[in-house]
C-alpha cells in the first residue's frame, strides 16, 4: 500500500465534495461533534451504536454491517473517505472495520477533523439525503483482527505494541487522561509489549508523519520486522490508528489489531500483567 491508496489531503476532499463516487463519512469519539457541523455531504457513523453490537461486546456482524451501510446509502463501489476528531482515532477504527468486511476503496482524510478546523475550512449543518443502497459485506478478514487467546500466545513470541500513553502502559492511569479514571479492570500492560504511543505517529495537527519517520519510530522501539505484530490499546480505536500506520502506510501485512484490548485483557482471570515502565518478562 502507499499513501496515495490510503490517505487523502484536505485539498483533495475539497476538490471532491460533489463527486458522486466519493462518500465522506465522519466518525468521532464525541458522537455529537457531527451535529455541531461537518464537512459538506458527509454522513455520520456513531461508533457507540453503529459499530458495536448492542447486546454482547463485539463488532457488529457481517449482516449488521451490510444493513448499516445500505441504510446510510453507501454502495460497494463507492470510495469511502473517513475522517473524525481525536486525530482520526475512531475514523481509523472505522477504516479497519471497512477493511474487516472487505471494502477496498476506503481512505482516511490526513489530519481528520482537527486539521480541517485548524485550516478554517467550511463545516455545514445540513445532513445529506442519500438514497438507500444494497451493500454486500464479505466475511470478516481475521487476518487483521486478533483475539485474546492469540494475544496471550503472542507474549514473548510476536511483536506486541501497546499504543496507549506511557502512564496507561505503566499502570498509573487506567484510561486516556480526557476520561474519568474509575474502571473495574487491573492496570498495567501485556508482558513483553513495547510502548509506542499512537501519538508518536502523528504530528500536532493530526497528520501522519513520513514513512521514514514512522519506520524509524518502530525500529527504535525494538520492533522485529520479521515477526508478526499485534497492536492494542484500551478499546481498540487508538490501536486502529497504529494498525493503519503499520499495515496500510508501511505495508506490514502481518499486523493485527486487538480490538478487545486492555478493557478485555485487564479483566481476564489469570493472565500475566506487567507493571511499570519496563516491558516485562514472558
Amino acid at each position, binding site marked *: 500500500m502507499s499513501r496515495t491508496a490510503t490517505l487523502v489531503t484536505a485539498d483533495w476532499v475539497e476538490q471532491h465534495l460533489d463527486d458522486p463516487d466519493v462518500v465522506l463519512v465522519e466518525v468521532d469519539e464525541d458522537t455529537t461533534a457531527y451535529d455541531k457541523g461537518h464537512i459538506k455531504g458527509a454522513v455520520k457513523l456513531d461508533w457507540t451504536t453503529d459499530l458495536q453490537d448492542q447486546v454482547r461486546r463485539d463488532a457488529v456482524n457481517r449482516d449488521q454491517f451490510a444493513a448499516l451501510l445500505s441504510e446510510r446509502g453507501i454502495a460497494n463501489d463507492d470510495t469511502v473517505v473517513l475522517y473524525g476528531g481525536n486525530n482520526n482515532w475512531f475514523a481509523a477504527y472505522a477504516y479497519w472495520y471497512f477493511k474487516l468486511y472487505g471494502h477496498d476503496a476506503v481512505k482516511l482524510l490526513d489530519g481528520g477533523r482537527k486539521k480541517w478546523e*485548524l485550516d*478554517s475550512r467550511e463545516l455545514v449543518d445540513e445532513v445529506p439525503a442519500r438514497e438507500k443502497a444494497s451493500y454486500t459485506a464479505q466475511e470478516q478478514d481475521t487476518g487483521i483482527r486478533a483475539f485474546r487467546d492469540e494475544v496471550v500466545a503472542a507474549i514473548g513470541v510476536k511483536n506486541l505494541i501497546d499504543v496507549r500513553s*506511557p502512564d496507561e502502559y505503566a499502570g498509573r492511569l487506567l484510561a486516556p487522561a*480526557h476520561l*474519568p479514571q474509575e474502571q473495574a479492570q487491573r492496570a498495567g500492560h501485556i508482558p513483553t509489549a513495547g510502548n509506542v504511543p499512537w*501519538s508518536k505517529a502523528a504530528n500536532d495537527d493530526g497528520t501522519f508523519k513520513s514513512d521514514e519517520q514512522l519506520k524509524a519510530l518502530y525500529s527504535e522501539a525494538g520492533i522485529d520486522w520479521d515477526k508478526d505484530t499485534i497492536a492494542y490499546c484500551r478499546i481498540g480505536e487508538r490501536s486502529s490508528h497504529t494498525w493503519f500506520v503499520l499495515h496500510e502506510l508501511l505495508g506490514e501485512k502481518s499486523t493485527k489489531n486487538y480490538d478487545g484490548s486492555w478493557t478485555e485483557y485487564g479483566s481476564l482471570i489469570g493472565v500475566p500483567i506487567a507493571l511499570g515502565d519496563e516491558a516485562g518478562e514472558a
Partner: protein
Amino acid sequence: MCGATSGGVSLEGVDLAKESVIEGVVTRSDGNGGGAPVENAYVRLLDRTGEFAAEVPTSATGEFRFFAAPGEWTVRTLAPRADVVDQRVVARQGVVAEVSVTI
C-alpha cells in the same frame, strides 16, 4: 457566551476525590485587555516528559477538562490563526487545577 466561567463541562457523577482534574478556558485576546472564548481550539495534555497524553476540542464556551494523574503536565493549545501556546500545570488528586489560556 462572553464572560462564561471556566470549567462548564459537567462533572456530575464523577467522584472528584479520586480524580486529578485539569481544566480551563481558551480565550482569544482582542488586544485591549479583553477577549472572547474560543470554541474550535484543540487542547493537548502532555506528560512530564513532553509525551502526548490526551486532547480535547474546546466547548462552545472555550472550555476544556482533563482527568490526569498527580504530577506535572503541560497544556498545549492549537487554534486556527494562532500560535501554539504551552502552559505548565501541576495536578493533585482531589483538586481541580484551573488553567487560563490566552491566544
